[in-house]
Every structure is written in C-alpha cells, then in structure tokens.
C-alpha cells in the first residue's frame, strides 16, 4: 500500500506537470485505495440508513405505548352492531310460551301452548328433537316462569295446580347435538295449588335452594322452598334436588297476580296485577306477608306489554305500548322499602312488542311493533338501534345469555336469528364520570366497584372516586413537598455558594433514587403507626420546627457582626440540624401535656367530636408526607436550576442600588425564575399523580370521595395495580382500566410537556439577556 507523505509527493509531482512515468505498482496501489474509499462510502451510507431506521423504529416503538393503549380502549366506543336477521326454515304454529337461544350450544328451545318442547339447531334451523314437558296426565300448560337468577331454569304451571321445574342440557356427542329437558326436582310434578289452575308463577334459584311461587284466581298464594345440591357433578350439569322442602301459604289480601317475580333478595316478592299495578310484598319468614308498596308501572294512557327482571334479579324492566321501557327497583330508605322508577327509556314511537334480558349484564333487547331493535344498557343508560326486522310483527324475542344473539318469532310463525355484537354495553362516558343510580342504592352516586365475580352485584364503573383519590393524594403531597422543596431550592440556588451547592444538591436529589416501594413500606408500616400514636407531637412539631429556626436566626442576628459573617457562606444548614432535632424533641416531650390541656387528652377524639373528622390510620396525611418526600427532589432539582440560572448581573444590578439579598430575591430573582418554579411544580405534580407503590402500600385503597386529611383514598395508579391482573382480557372492565391508564399517560404527558415548554422558553429568555 502506497499512501501518506510519499504518495503525496508522487501525486504532487505528477500534477505539477513534471515529467515522470507512473510505475504499474503505484497504479495498482492507487486502485486498491480507490476501492477502499468506495467501500468506506458504502459503509457510511449503510450506517446512516441503519441508524436512521433503527432510531426511528425504537422511537416509534416507545410511542407505540400511546397507540396500543388507544387500540385497547377504542372498542369501548364501538357501540352495538347487529347483522342482518337470518330467517330459519322452520315455521311454527301458535304463540310460543317459551323461547330461548343458546349460541354456545348452538341450540334454540321453543315450548308451545301444549307443552311441547322443540329444539332447533341455531345454525341450520333444523328441528333437532321434540320432547313433551313432563306434565300430569291430562293437564294443560297455563303459566311459565324463568329463574330470576339467570340460571336457565324455568317452571311450568298446569291447570290442575301442579308445577314442574325444568332446565335443559345440550350434550354434544361425536359432532351431533342431543338436547334434552332435565328436571332438577324430579320429573314428577309438584302439587302446589290443590287443583286450582296455576295462573301466575315465580321462580328463583340461589345457593340456598329454589323458591317457587304459584298463584291462581282464588285462594292463597303458595311459596315452596327446596334446597338444592349446591355442587353439581360437573360444570355443565344442572344442580340436583336436595332433601329439605318447605312449603307455605302466603296471603296478600285480594291481589290476584298475573305475574309473580321473585327478586334475588328472599325478603321480597313482586306481584303484577291485570291492571298493570305492581305490588311489593314482604315475605320474609316468620312474619305475615305484607304489601309494602303498590305502583302503576305505566302511565294511565299506556298499557304494559312486557316485564322482565334484569340480570342479578334486583331490578325489573317494564315496557309498554307507548314504546317506553322503565327500570324499577326496590329502594330502602329509613327502613322503609318502596318501589322506585329509577330511569326510563323512550325507545320507540310504538309498542314494545318483545323484550328479553341478558343473563349477566344489565342489558336488555327490545323489538318494537314496527320491527326496530333496541339494545339498552340500563346502568350506563346507553341505547342503540342497530337494526330493523322487516317481517310481520315480532311476538317473542329471546336474547342469548351472553347477549350475542337474538332469537325472534314473528306473527307468521317464522323464527329468525340476529347476531348481535355488543361487547361493551356497560361502558358510557356519562356513567364513567357522572352520578349513576345503582341497584340497592337510595340515590345516584359516584362509585367504583368493579367486582366481576358475582353477577348479582352490579359492576359500578365510575372513575370519579379514583380520580378524586388521585388528585387528593397528589394535592396533599404537594402541600407537603412544594413549600419545602421551593424553600430549599431558594436557599441552595441563591444564597448558597456554588461550591457548597454542588455538594448539597446531589444529596437532596438522592431522595429521588430511593425506591418508592421502600418509602411506601416505611410510610405504611413505620410512619402510620407512629403518627397514629403521636399525632399531637406531629402537629406540635409542625409549629415548633419553623419557630425553632426563627429563634435560631434571631439568636444569630444578636451575635456580634464578625461572627455572623461566617454564616453567609450557606452553612446555616449544619447549624440548624441540632436546632431542628431540639425542636422535634421539645414537641415530643410537650405533646402529652398540650394534648391534655387543650384537647381533653386526645387530639383524635377531639377532632372527631369537634369537627367530625374520622381518623383512619392509613390516611392522606401519611400519603402527603410519604409521597411529598418522593416528589421533593423532582421539584427541588428543577426549581434550584431555575433560580441558579437567573443571570447574576440581574441581581448585581439590584444589589448595587442598595437592595439587600432578600429583597433582590423577592423582587428580581423569583419573578424571573417563576416560570421555572412553576414547571418544577408541574413536574412534581405529574410525578405524584402517577406514583403507585406509596399509595398502594400506605392507604387502605378505599375508593371513597372524602377530602378529609385523616381518611384514605384509592388512586387511579394503585387501582390499576390492584385490579388489572385479575380482570378478564378484553372485557369492559379490562378496557376501562386501560382507559384509566391512558388518562394517566395523557395527563402526565401533557403536564410534563407543558412544563418542558415553559422551561425552554425560560432558557431562551435567559440566553437573550
């Protein structure tokens, strides 16, 4: 290889025109060099392309977080959709007494007036099987009732006063479906009304057993309670009858019910009369039955068309021929139970012809006389009209248990299926943020209670209490941290010589590095009991500490000038350590005396009696101190920079005209650094908003809305840590939690960006000065 100085000389001589023949060897070397240069150029380009691609890829993968959270949240806003109705090939006669669809098993069940149960294949529409309901010989079917617990059981009443309870099971064997009826209480009918025809029937199953209520046109109403074997042999099988049977008469005056509803609470029974009046009867064991309340379900001009208990068996939906559907439930106020119309949906401008409810969500589907389909989530008060039926008027509708299919029977005897996609019915922005009236609640409230374990409990998705808890925790933390951090920043940023500042600043910033789990641990298990036991000492300390500092300052001012000079160097902080310790000690020693002198011996009791402030051991005070501790460094660090970087010639100018340091600070430095301090506060606030472990460990995590310093809270972040591992993937709960994390992300991102903007503007300003 020939290059370097020699090469240059050769090159120089060649180009300067001097005679000289190039040797072949030199030419080869030159070519090799050129090839190498080409390779270098290619390398450079390849590196540029790779780094650019890699860099952009990595950055976009970070930003992917935004998009992914959006992607998970988006389905919540999708609303309900329904495909086109598919008409099954079967034509049926008469009106169905019973219609049911189970897309999981692929089977629909229809029971006609004669008590003949027909099973259809939901996909092909073919008749799979016919099976007569086990009826007493010669008896005609007169009434049917569904289980209010949504188990799929139903009861059938006959004109000889007997009742039979049945369910059905679709066993899938070698590809073919063989559905059949099953009788958990045995196929023999239960004699309930001594020969009087059953006119109205009610059924409820629960962990305690089944209750069947039957009434006829005359005579008392009968209630039969029978224990069930609570553990069925396998998951798909129906429970079997247990031994204990109780049957009692219930006399409720001269009410002749058309329908009986047995809500999940065994104390109540609802009786609907032919005139559309609903009676609430108390039927608790031991007491004589009593009618507590009677209400008209419809207005005077309208006629009740359909009524169903909603999932969970706590509230009912009553639809009428004016196209309205209303939710009613039992509200207990001051020990008095009454029926309340909680909300009403004006669905159609003609009659609600058919209606059915989902088994686990508070969702019902209604079809109008004109064939419009409405899907309603009751709690979230969302209504959607995803489709229309253009055949003859629908008579009966059956919604699949999970709400993904609607089976219709129209006046022409045709059966039709309607695929429904309504995965997030329980979500609405309104329910998320505004007060909602939940079952069992005397009034609308903001509640977060997302237990997915039990259908009987209505899930309550209000982010308001969590947001409130988040803000409460953050605000108390800021109350603690902001004054301390800013005062400290003022001192190190302005008064302290920069040499000392360089040493002190990293020490305070070290606080930021402490794992929050450790702070949470100390707050919850060390500080909380300590404060619990020494509340008075703490309150006294908050007073005595600044007082001690002021006294120390006064004492210093009284010292001769030549001693005082030393302290200008910023080493007050060392001198103050014993002062603070002393003040703390005094507070601790004085606390019992002050407490007995001023607060009758117990500050906590006094707070409760005087101000009604309950004291919970893990409270906002603890959070304020612990999380305040965690955010001090964030605020301090930025505020200190902001104050320190104010150009010195500004303050020199003020000092030159005779202002003292404090005046310079107040009138010049702080206003100049104010945007920076504001940005520091914003960063600190953002940090407090998102802090998880401290809130998780040092509060009781109760989602209550109470600004009391001595009560706990649950924050959005802590709620995520608690609930998301247990929420079902893709469920509304899961997605609402994602929404909460998106809210957190956006909030902190926006607040940080704003702080950054403020800071950059400030930096530009200083550069210009």
């Amino acid at each position, binding site marked *: 290889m020939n290059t*370097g100085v020699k090469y*240059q000389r050769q*090159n120089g001589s060649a180009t300067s025109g001097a005679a000289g023949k190039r040797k072949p060897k030199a030419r080869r070397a030159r070519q090799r060099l050129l090839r*190498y240069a080409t390779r*270098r*150029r290619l390398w*450079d380009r390849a590196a540029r392309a790779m780094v650019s691609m890699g860099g952009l890829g990595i950055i976009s993968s970070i930003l992917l977080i935004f998009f992914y959270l959006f992607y998970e949240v988006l389905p919540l806003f999708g609303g309900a959709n329904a495909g086109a109705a598919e008409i099954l090939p079967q034509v049926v006669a008469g009106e169905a007494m019973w219609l049911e669809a189970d897309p999981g098993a692929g089977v629909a069940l229809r029971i006609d007036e004669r008590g003949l149960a027909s099973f259809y294949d939901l996909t092909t529409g073919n008749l799979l099987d016919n099976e007569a309901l086990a009826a007493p010989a010669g008896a005609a079917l007169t009434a049917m009732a569904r289980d209010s617990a949504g188990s799929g059981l139903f009861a059938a009443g006959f004109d000889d006063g007997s009742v039979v309870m049945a369910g059905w099971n679709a066993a899938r064997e070698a590809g073919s479906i063989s559905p059949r009826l099953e009788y958990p209480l045995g196929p023999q009918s239960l004699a309930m009304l001594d020969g009087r025809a059953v006119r109205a029937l009610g059924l409820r199953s629960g962990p305690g057993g089944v209750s069947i209520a039957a009434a006829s046109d005359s005579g008392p109403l009968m209630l039969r309670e029978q224990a069930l074997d609570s553990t069925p042999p396998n998951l798909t099988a129906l429970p079997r009858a247990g031994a204990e049977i109780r049957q009692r008469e219930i006399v409720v005056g001269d009410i002749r019910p058309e329908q009986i509803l047995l809500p999940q609470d065994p104390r109540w029974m609802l009786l609907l009369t032919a005139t559309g009046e609903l009676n609430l009867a108390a039927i608790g064991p031991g007491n004589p039955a009593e009618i507590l309340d009677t209400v008209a379900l419809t207005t005077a001009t309208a006629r009740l068309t359909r009524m169903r208990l909603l999932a969970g068996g706590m509230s009912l939906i009553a639809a009428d021929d004016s196209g309205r559907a209303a939710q009613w439930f039992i509200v207990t106020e001051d020990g008095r139970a009454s029926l309340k119309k909680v909300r009403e949906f004006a669905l159609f401008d003609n009659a609600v012809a058919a209606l059915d409810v989902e088994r686990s969500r508070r969702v019902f589907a209604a079809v109008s006389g004109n064939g419009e389909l409405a899907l309603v989530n009751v709690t979230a008060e969302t209504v959607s009209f995803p489709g229309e039926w253009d055949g003859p008027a629908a008579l009966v509708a059956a919604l699949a248990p999970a709400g993904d299919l609607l089976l219709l029977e129209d006046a022409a005897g045709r059966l039709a299926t309607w695929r429904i996609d309504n995965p997030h019915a329980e979500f609405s922005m309104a329910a998320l943020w505004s007060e909602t009236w939940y079952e069992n609640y005397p009034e609308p409230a903001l509640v977060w209670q997302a237990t997915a374990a039990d259908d009987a409990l209505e899930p309550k998705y209000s982010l308001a209490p969590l947001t409130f808890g988040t803000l409460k925790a953050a605000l108390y933390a800021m109350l603690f941290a902001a004054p301390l951090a800013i005062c400290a920043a003022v001192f190190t940023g302005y008064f302290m010589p920069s040499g000392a500042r360089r040493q002190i600043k990293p020490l305070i910033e070290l606080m930021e590095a402490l794992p929050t789990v450790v702070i949470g641990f100390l707050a919850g298990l060390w500080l909380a009991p300590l404060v619990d036991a020494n509340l008075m000492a703490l309150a006294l300390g908050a007073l005595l500490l600044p007082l001690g500092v002021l006294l120390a300052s006064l004492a210093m001012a009284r010292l001769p000038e030549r001693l005082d000079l030393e302290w200008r160097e910023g080493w007050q902080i060392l001198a103050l350590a014993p002062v603070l310790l002393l003040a703390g000690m005094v507070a601790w020693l004085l606390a019992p005396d002050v407490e007995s002198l001023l607060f009758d011996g117990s500050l906590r009791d006094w707070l409760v009696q005087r101000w009604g402030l309950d004291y919970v051991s893990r409270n906002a005070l603890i959070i304020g101190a612990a999380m305040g501790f965690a955010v001090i460094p964030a605020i301090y660090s930025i505020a200190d920079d902001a104050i320190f970087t104010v150009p010195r010639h500004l303050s020199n100018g003020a000092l030159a005209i005779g202002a003292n340091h404090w005046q310079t600070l107040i009138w010049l430095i702080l206003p100049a650094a104010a945007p920076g301090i504001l940005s520091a506060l914003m960063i600190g606030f953002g940090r407090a908003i998102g802090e998880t472990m401290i809130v998780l460990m040092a509060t009781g995590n109760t989602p209550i809305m109470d600004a009391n310093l001595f009560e706990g809270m649950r924050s959005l972040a802590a709620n995520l840590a608690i609930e998301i591992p247990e929420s079902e993937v893709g469920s509304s709960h899961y997605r609402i939690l994602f929404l909460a994390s998106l809210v957190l992300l956006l909030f902190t991102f926006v607040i940080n960006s704003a702080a950054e903007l403020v800071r950059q503007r400030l930096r530009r300003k200083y550069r210009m000065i």
Partner: protein
Amino acid sequence: MNSEELSELNPDADGVRPDPCLETRNLSLRYAGNRRALNKVRLTIPRQRVTALIGPSGCGKTSLLRCFNRLNDLVDDCVITGRVRLEGKNIYAAKVDVTELRRRVGMVFQKPNPFPKSIYENVAFGLRIRGIKSRRRLDEIVQESLSAAALWEEVKDRLHKSALELSGGQQQRLVIARTLAVAPEVLLLDESASALDPISTLKIEELISELKKNYTIVIVTHNLQQAARVADYTAFMDMGEMVEFDTTARIFTNPVRRRTEEYITGRYG
C-alpha cells in the same frame, strides 16, 4: 479560459508565475436568516505558495476557507452558489467524494483540537480510517508527519502519551502533523496561531515556510504582520467581498483599492 485565469496571478517576489491550484468563481454563501457571508468571490490560489486571507472580523474569511473543503456542508440551511475548483475540477459537483476532497484539502483550526487519544493515534487516525493497517507503514508515516510538523524530536519518547498533555503550540503542530499524515495537497490554516504564545507562533510560522515547498497553503489571519511575514500572496476581504488580491509585497506596499489601504494602515478593522 485557462490563460485568462493564469493571468490573474501576478509573478511573485522571485518573478515566478505560479500555477493556480484552487479557484473560486462567483462564489456566494448565505446562512439561514439571509445573512450573506460571501458575495461573488473570485479568487485564484497559487500552487505551493502561502496565501493569506486578511480582513476585519466577520468579513467571511473563515467561511471562504470552509468552502474549500466543504466543511460548510455541515452547517444547516447554508446555501452556496458559484464554483470552487480544485485542480480545475468543481468540488461542488454532484459526484465528488467529499471525504476524499477533505483528505486532499487539509485544515487546521484556530484552537488546537487533538483527539483525546495518544499522540501516535492522533496522527495515525486519518490513516487507519483509510484502511492502512500495516504497523510498519503507520510508524513510518507517523514519524515522517511529525518530523514534517517539526514535532518529532519533542515527542518521540512519548508517542503513546495522551495528546492532551502537550502544550498548546505542540498540540497545534500535532494537529498539523495529523493533517499532513493523510497527504493533502492543500493546507488550510484558520487563524491557527492566534491562540498560541509568541514562541509557539514563531515555530508555526517557521513550519509554514518550510511546508510551502510541498503544499499549497492558505492561512486566515488577523495578524497583518504575520501575513506579511509568511504569505507570498495576500487577499483582502471585506463584508463578504474579495476586495483585492495580489502578491503580499504589493498589497502591503502599494494597494490598488482605498479600502485595502485603510485596513493595512490600521485606519479601521
């Protein structure tokens, strides 16, 4: 055309009319915010001579210098129009290999900027990136370059010590050696002695006189005495324009333009 360009170069003190090496025609440069740094500069730099660019601060000397090795490419929003030719080839043509150009047009900066590596590695840097791996070859060129930069005797015992330990003048000569190692044809010195003490400055000036035997050298300087001492030709620039270019002797004794005269005699600048 070639003869016309040649005619621009007046014969030097020895009466020799040198060849042109670098030429600019209509060279204009504008930075972002419409600040015009160079305006239609026309200049021919003679081969194997020392050319000094003088002029008041902000007159565009450094900008012009950085056009010669396209270091201005690194500045965002910098628009260059016109032509710069090295050995008759436009260096702003599309196909020019910029890295090879920069190898041919070496540059020494105002402040010495050795890499935080050893002395040896500093000099060998340009060779290594060009794919020279032979230890023997590297040793050879490093020694030659350091000798050429009049530094060899001072550092030969501590070649593997950090370059940051050298004095300012030594650092600057090291940077020159580093530049020489890659065998440039042109050497641009951007006020390269301004940050040094008088003795170091003297050494650098001696070095420049020595180097012009093999290299075409362009220096930017604020120091008129320095220009008068080392330069064969001098160009006076003002406000982005080439005011006057001639042999140093003529510029300093008998300038044509009044602006030049005022500057030389220290009436402004």
